[in-house]
């Protein structure tokens, strides 16, 4: 469509020359806009966001371990009748953690599915014992407490509450 192409080319050419015009005028784009420099790329996530994303990933791994344990031989995983309830609580942890994370659309974290995949992650072992789950719960609780100092108060309280839940799971599992 001949009428459209020239206008499109004109627009593209204008966009390409805007930085040049600004540069020759002796100003940066940030001089024109009052916010962050839009040409500087995506701003780095705040420390709280980085920490929260890491905690979410750890919770997802824990859920993966539980799913693997439940899918395994029930004779090898004594007290397996407790596992579904504990898994359900970890899924609640994940839901609430994800609700605290606000990311622009299209980022890797924001693109995560609402529920963890039914299949274990590629790194999950073929068989997970109760002892393995105990160790994972202890590590989760300890990791959350270590992160308390790095986040704002409300998030610290959520971390502490989840850590307390993890500690009770250790007791249930016989740890």
């Amino acid at each position, binding site marked *: 469509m001949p009428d459209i192409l020239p206008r499109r080319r004109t627009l593209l050419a204008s966009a390409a020359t805007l930085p040049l015009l600004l540069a020759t005028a002796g100003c940066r784009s940030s001089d024109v806009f009052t916010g962050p420099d839009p040409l500087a790329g995506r701003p780095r996530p705040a420390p709280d966001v980085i920490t929260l994303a890491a905690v979410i990933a750890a919770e997802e791994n824990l859920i993966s371990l539980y799913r693997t344990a439940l899918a395994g031989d029930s004779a090898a995983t004594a007290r397996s009748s407790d596992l579904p*309830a*504990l898994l*359900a*609580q970890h899924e*609640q*942890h994940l839901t*609430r953690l994800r609700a605290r994370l606000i990311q622009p659309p299209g980022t890797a974290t924001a693109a995560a599915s609402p529920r963890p995949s039914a299949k274990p992650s590629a790194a999950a072992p073929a068989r997970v014992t109760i002892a393995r789950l105990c160790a994972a719960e202890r590590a989760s*609780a300890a990791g*959350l*407490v270590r992160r*308390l*100092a790095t986040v704002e*108060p*409300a998030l*610290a*309280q*959520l*971390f*502490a*509450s*989840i*850590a*307390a*839940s993890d*500690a*009770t*799971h250790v*007791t*249930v599992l016989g740890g």
Partner: protein
Amino acid sequence: MGEITGVSALRAALAAEDAAIYGYGVAGAHLSGGRQAAAEQYWERHNKARDTLTAMIYALGAQPVTAQASYSLPFPVHDGTSAMALAAYIEDGVTRAYLGIVAVSDQRLRDFGALAMQNSAERAAYWRGSTQAFPGLAP
């Protein structure tokens, strides 16, 4: 909401511990065997926690709150089942109080509050017979 200070949070936890000490005295009278032994053990732990919190408040240059002579029970306690329910209720309150300490800015107090929460949440789970997803927080 104003900033939660270390002293105010510690006082709230101390008040919860004082209530727990009183409540376990009521609950223990209706328990027997292993449950009664657990109630006695937890009563001693609450006494120690009370002493620890009192010392921490003094160390911050403040005065601790005074325990009440008696506390209103949330429901009648007349048998083992209601006694265990009371014990779980008490521990939930203690967990909430220590969660308040986690909100202060001092890292050491945050760690202290978080670890204390784990202990009270475990005791609550013992009495309740089940765990919770978010001890101390609204569901």
